[in-house]
């Protein structure tokens, strides 16, 4: 663990309940500068809730939540834009912070949607909108990025490119990333720390440690071990020409 100055957000035994029903409880984790922390777990295991606790969206929270930065970029899991708002991509980019035109163009180019700049937000496809969401979150050069399934609906090649971009941003901006993803390949290859949730923290640690953990195996079952073995198999094959997937 690195020194305290590097910590961007810290949860200690945090939990949240609505009407006496716990959405998630007993979560401890911290996101540091330059590190990627990934939350995995089945549907309804409290991943998005944990992200919202860390972001301060949920206010009446059990346990301790400390956020050390206000420069935050957030890609929510669900977002619906109302048709009553005439909103172009360009207007959406400056939603929470005023940015220079070059900064906007740069971010939109990185996620491959610069050609959509003057389009109405309502006219975008799901994948295009997802790329705009990611561009908006990174354009303000945040200290902390919270990405809740950031590549949902993006095509296969785009998905790989965007995950590479996320990894690159984490290195270049030295920002901390809290990532929620169902793609175990990515989790295993790009993440520094994995937290496996199922209403509480099942297990956590480096990707390799978590993959070996019995509780993880019990939770994800046959499928996970298959994916993991497929991952290792794939790693052997694409190691020479791409080398993207590194084994720690």
């Amino acid at each position, binding site marked *: 663990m690195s020194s305290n100055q590097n910590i961007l957000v810290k949860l200690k035994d945090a939990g949240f309940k609505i009407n006496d029903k716990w959405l998630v409880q007993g979560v401890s984790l911290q996101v540091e500068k330059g590190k990627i922390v990934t939350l995995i777990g089945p549907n309804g295991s409290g991943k998005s809730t944990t992200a919202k606790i860390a*972001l*301060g969206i949920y206010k009446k929270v059990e346990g301790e939540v400390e956020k050390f930065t206000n420069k935050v970029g957030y890609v929510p899991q669900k977002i619906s834009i109302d048709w*009553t*708002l005439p909103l*172009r991509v360009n207007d959406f980019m400056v939603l*929470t912070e005023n940015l220079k035109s070059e900064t906007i163009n740069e971010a939109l180019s990185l996620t491959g949607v610069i050609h959509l700049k003057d389009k109405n937000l309502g006219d975008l496809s799901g994948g295009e909108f997802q790329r705009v969401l990611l561009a908006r979150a990174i354009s303000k050069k945040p200290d902390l990025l919270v990405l809740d399934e950031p590549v949902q609906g993006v095509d296969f090649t785009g998905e790989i490119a965007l995950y590479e971009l996320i990894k690159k941003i984490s290195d270049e901006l030295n920002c901390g990333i809290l990532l929620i993803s169902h793609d175990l390949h990515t989790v295993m290859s790009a993440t520094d720390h994995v937290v496996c949730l199922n209403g509480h923290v099942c297990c956590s640690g480096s990707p390799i440690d978590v993959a070996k953990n019995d509780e993880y195996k019990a939770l994800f079952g046959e499928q996970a071990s298959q994916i993991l073995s497929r991952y290792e198999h794939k790693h052997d094959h694409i190691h020479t020409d791409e080398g993207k997937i590194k084994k720690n």
Partner: protein
Amino acid sequence: MFDDFFIRALVAGIGVALVTGPLGCFVIWRRLSYFGDTLAHSALLGVTLAFTMEFNIALSVFIISSLIALTLIQLQKRTNLPGDALLGLLAHSSLAVGLVVIGFLTFIRFDIMGLLFGDILAVTVDDLLIIWIGGAIILLILKLIWKPLFASTVNYELAEAEGLNPDRAKAIFTILMAAIIAISIKMVGLLLITGMLIIPAAMARNISTSPQKMVVYSIIGGLLSVILGLFSSLEFNTSSGPSIITAALLLFILSLFKIKQTIKLKN
């Protein structure tokens, strides 16, 4: 120059339209039409209290409307009734109580029609001051909270996560709504104020491609409605409020032709 009642009415109307333009856009975006109506209905109670206690009308309406808005927020938290039922409850009960109080005030002659539908003859130089100074303050505050208010209108969680404090912006906006109703009640009348907020903004929605454009078109639409409405009010001897709103409706109908064109282009 303000000796002429018509000039006074025109200057007052222009002041009102400059403020209802941008506020009206938020009323549409945030789906607050019936909230505006509720505040406006409660204004009658404010007016009657002003007469009973010999108090400034605009200030009294502002206080009562703000109280009703706060009551609404509390009721939303503490009851299981849906929002529209609570709005209806507050709108009609405050209107009813206002009318009952008027019934008791037999010693004062009331121009109920003027209150409900606006009366250009009633606009005084003091009213002009209230409209222009109050309006300037409303616009200034709206400019200051624009970023968090707009961001939370698009998506509350994004605004909250990225540190914009949307709850505070929403509370301030509620107060601004009460304020615009207070300063424009004499011009448009309490039954039609929400029309002045919604109709020019709705017209603007039909012809705009960005939020900024919608605000500008909404202001222009409001100004045209006031000018057209007041001149016809003079010409046909009709109440000022209904004349202004009818003019706004005509502009809205015109804007439908523009939207028809864009839909055709899309297909």
